């Protein structure tokens, strides 16, 4: 069993590091992990859950606001983008946050095409991140099921 655990742990380590290197996650995700302990063993999963729910809700708001035939209320779009920027920043969702920064600028410039493009991108991006994180959590589960402990990954 030890060989399996070691293999899984290495896979987990490599996968986690790749997420940081590819810009999906940043330091704030590391900070988030620090908040998880025996008292709150599922904190990261809970927060991410909330975050992804937020994504669905806020992107829905943005889509509706941009779908107005006639004048678009850019401040409404901007308000949702601002919120998404905040929560993505708090979980360390680096790419989503980066898109929100650009999105916000397009809102301020009242650039319709720019906004629509950003909306599509942010939708793809959060879904991609969700899949990646699910893969990461599955690796964690496999390690535990194989009798091992999830290693602390040092991002340098």
């Amino acid at each position: 069993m030890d060989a399996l655990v070691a293999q899984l742990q290495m896979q987990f380590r490599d996968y986690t590091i790749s997420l940081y290197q590819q810009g999906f996650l940043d330091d704030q995700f590391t900070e988030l992990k620090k908040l998880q302990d025996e008292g709150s063993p599922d904190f990261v999963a809970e927060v991410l859950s909330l975050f992804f729910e937020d994504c669905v809700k806020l992107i829905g708001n943005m889509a509706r606001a941009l779908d107005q035939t006639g004048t678009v209320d850019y401040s409404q779009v901007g308000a949702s983008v601002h919120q998404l920027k905040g929560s993505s920043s708090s979980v360390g969702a680096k790419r989503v946050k980066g898109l929100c920064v650009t999105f916000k600028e397009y809102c301020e410039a009242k650039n319709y095409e720019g906004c629509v493009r950003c909306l599509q991108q942010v939708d793809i991006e959060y879904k991609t991140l969700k899949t990646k994180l699910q893969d990461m959590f599955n690796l964690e589960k496999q390690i535990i099921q194989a009798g091992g402990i999830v290693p602390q990954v040092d991002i340098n």
Partner: protein
Amino acid sequence: MGIVTESSQFHVLAVDDSLFDRKMIERLLQKSSCQVTTVDSGSKALEFLGLRESDDINDPNAPSTSPQTHQEVEINLIITDYCMPGMTGYDLLKKVKESAAFKSIPVVIMSSENVPARISRCLEEGAEEFFLKPVKLADLTKLKPHMMKTKLKKESEKLAKEENALLIPVIEEDSSVIEILPLSQELESEQHEPMLSSNKRKAMEEVISTDRSRPKYNDITTSV
């Protein structure tokens, strides 16, 4: 929630309109060994403190506590988001600092936006710190000295109050017979020496005719 009895833990009141941010700040504070109460608006924060707004008469859910009597909960720090609908974090800061009862509570402002004018305005109004979101664990270690200050201050104030209450001298007619002691000492001597020296006891018994001349120890309420 109930009444919080004084403990060695710091109690922080966290204010943020975003559920997500409330969850984050709550965990951060818990991880820093603080007791946390979260509310979703400035007005709820004031309500919790017992500082109700005068135009809140239409709110059926508002508790009917007056500022003077609401001392059950001790808050060592208020941490609030800046951007909130209705009352902003800045408005809340002002209200707290304008209140005689609560102006000594340190207030910390959080914001996702780095606006220097906003930051200096908050600091000028009396905010202890201004944190940029996302707030990190390391940021919260800066708060311990602020919370320590108010906790120690409150405890020493309380002690001073209790001592003052007990320092009312015993006014006797025959003062040559009775040694006037600060009451705290008198209490102590009674506790440690239930059998007073015969002279003193006799003298006291001679003079004490009515209850009025002797302070009623039982009436002094001390809050621990």
